[in-house]
């Protein structure tokens, strides 16, 4: 069923910080504060809330309503890591479309205390506790090192290919004030960076940080009455634990649902003006190029070699720098592409604008439970004509 008249607006980013002494509640509170300002609504107008955070314990979304003084009639919790932005958008859109809520605030925020990252790793999942963390405690780096190595063996990807993605994204990030990485990156620097977990080196890995992101979902007529710029939602997909029999992950859930995505959106990959992928590691970006239909399976490396991924390039990609440059603000990383694509399509980018951007695709990926990412999702957004 099409998302008739459902829009996203008021993208918010609370400037990232490497470490924060504040709580996740504080970060989520700032994001919602900025969201109400951007949309021109009062906190009491928020009658729908969907929330993602890794560092909210012992609270859940319910506790947060009282903490923040909100009284929503529709509430959801989206613990999907890097897929949380897409899933939240998808849930919120149907809630608004069906009249369960008028304004659904979609928000993700995490703090990063000095020891948060290690603590998050040790207790991430039961499988992580039983079958991953005791094996060198390399965290997601070690898991993606194996996935990367396998992908390189299978399809002949080289470190230089992944490096090109990182270098181009860094170029995009230089215009983004909240990005953790502020210096240009050269391919030499990428290649010579210190090894983390072979074949991954320093610039293949995101820097954990604190931050929050939010976006508002409502009806188009409501957005118009508020005079807020908005984007139309054309299509979304979502999948969890796809292809469980693949011995190692070489494709994500997108590959199961990609036909439905483009069919529902009524556009094709060649119509897309900018793509925001979930870039926890470059190998996953490469899989998204393939699985979302921008090239065939196994052609990812060649696709990378034949394109320029900067804002002015032949294939504008992760136009705010992606998490590899801005840092990974916990669950907020799952919103980075969504807020950026919304800004680009409404003509209000923080950094450089993609020329004449009409259609954007955004994808998410998350939750390394054992040996692979389990959740995937994607959305196609269109500029309001």
């Amino acid at each position: 069923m099409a998302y008739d008249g459902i829009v996203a607006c008021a993208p918010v980013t609370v400037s990232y910080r490497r470490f924060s002494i504040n709580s996740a509640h504080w970060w989520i509170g700032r994001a919602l504060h900025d969201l109400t300002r951007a949309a021109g609504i009062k906190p009491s107008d928020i009658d729908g809330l969907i929330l993602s955070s890794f560092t909210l314990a012992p609270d859940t979304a319910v506790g947060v309503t009282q903490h923040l003084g909100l009284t929503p009639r529709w509430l959801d919790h989206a613990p999907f890591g890097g897929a949380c932005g897409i899933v939240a958008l998808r849930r919120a859109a149907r809630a608004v479309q069906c009249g369960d809520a008028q304004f659904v605030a979609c928000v993700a925020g995490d703090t990063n205390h000095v020891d948060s990252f290690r603590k998050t790793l040790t207790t991430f999942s039961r499988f992580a506790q039983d079958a991953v963390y005791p094996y060198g405690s390399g965290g997601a780096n070690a898991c993606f090192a194996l996935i990367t190595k396998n992908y390189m063996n299978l399809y002949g990807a080289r470190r230089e290919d992944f490096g090109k993605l990182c270098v181009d994204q860094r170029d995009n990030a230089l215009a983004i004030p909240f990005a953790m990485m502020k210096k240009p990156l050269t391919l030499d620097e990428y290649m010579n960076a210190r090894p983390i977990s072979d074949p991954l080196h320093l610039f293949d890995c995101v820097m954990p940080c604190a931050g929050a992101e939010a976006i508002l979902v409502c009806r188009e007529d409501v957005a118009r009455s508020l005079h807020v710029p908005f984007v139309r939602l054309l299509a979304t997909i979502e999948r969890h634990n796809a292809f469980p029999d693949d011995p190692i992950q070489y494709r994500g859930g997108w590959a199961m649902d990609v036909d439905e995505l483009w069919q529902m959106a009524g556009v094709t990959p060649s119509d897309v003006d900018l793509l925001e992928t979930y870039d926890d590691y470059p190998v996953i970006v490469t899989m998204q190029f393939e699985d979302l239909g921008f090239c065939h399976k196994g052609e990812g490396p060649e696709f990378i070699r034949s394109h320029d991924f900067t804002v002015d390039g032949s294939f504008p990609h992760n136009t705010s720098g992606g998490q590899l440059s801005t840092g990974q603000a916990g669950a907020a990383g799952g919103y980075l592409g969504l807020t950026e694509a919304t800004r680009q399509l409404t003509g209000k980018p923080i950094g450089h604008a993609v020329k004449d951007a009409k259609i954007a695709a955004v994808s998410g990926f998350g939750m390394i439970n054992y040996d692979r990412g389990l959740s995937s999702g994607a959305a196609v957004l269109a500029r309001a004509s």
Partner: protein
Amino acid sequence: MTRPLEPPKRKNPLKKTKQPLYPQSIRSRTAQGLTAAAALGRFELQKCLDCDAVIYPPRDVCPKCLSARVPFVPVRNGGQVLAETTIRTSTDPYFRERTPWRTGLTKLDVGPVVLSHLHGDVREGARVRLDLRLDKGGAPVMIALPDQETQHMADDPQLREMTCDPKFRRALITDGRGAVGQAMAQAFSEAGASIVFVGVADPWKPFPGQDALSKISCVEIVPLDVTDSESVTEQAEQIGGRVDIIVNTAEHVRPGGIMQRHGLTVAREEMDIRYFGLLRLAQAFGPGMRARGADGTNSAAAFVNLLSVHALMNWPQYGGYSAAEAAALSAAQCLRAELRPGGVKVLNVFFGPLETEWFQTVPPPKVAPAALARAVVQALQRGQEELFVGDIAQDIRARLAVNPKALERELG
């Protein structure tokens, strides 16, 4: 190719002893099924009784058919390494001081894909056998070993973190007067221990086998009487800092239950030697061992208790003896928890009647002291926590698992 271990250099007493660390040892209750298998040196995974799927990581429900009947059973451990990585940065203090550390994903022939430690002789794409071991924290972990034995295989640094190999370690055999202690000294010497201290109470009293014992290479006889707190403490002061493995061979086998005996004299002796003897050794040597669990090639590694399998179920014919063994077993479980933070394992070895004078009237099968000693060394080389030696011990264990009440009736 594994580089053979170098004999450890003499320790510089001015240098700080590295404090023991261990990998995260928290596991789900279901994953403790792996602990049970690893403790016995077995390879077991869950298998669905309804659809035969082999399951890993441990689950409470079969991911193929949603059955909840998923017990741990022995399965074939062959597989192929799909991808490997060398971890160079780790958030965990234990691994941080041991990087680079190799891990990989292995596709088992029986189905699941397993993330495991990699032996140094294992390469990406190679055929391997996965083994379940207990790591420094006593938690179960998988390690991929070469399909075929390789040279100096046991010396691999990652593997050696999971074993208590006597090679280049210093052992204390607490009682060398008996056949078991002497066989143990021989086995440790053959396994490459650098010193085998052998305790003898009242060394001026001659005993059978004395000459042969003193001729075993690396054996050093020391005065030690486990019934004398002063003797134990004194010996710990002398050699405590150099004891990496203790094997408590002090035994006291006397027939009889409760009512055949008059008074408590024999029972007191039994408890004094077996229960209090263990406590004396543990109090005198334990703290030092726990502090030296990460002290290089010859770090403290294991405390071995030799126990009658009747510690698990009383044998009324040797009822008093069984009770003292049960007390020693219970203390050993406590000791295991206390030594675990130091990365020191407690190996409990269960056996039936031994081929010794005090079991003279008991019919075979009986366990020869030399066989017991060889089994102990092998279990240490594998890093096991439990060992059942001989047919009687295996039989009792199996019957206990099926129906403890039947076993109790049948023994009495």
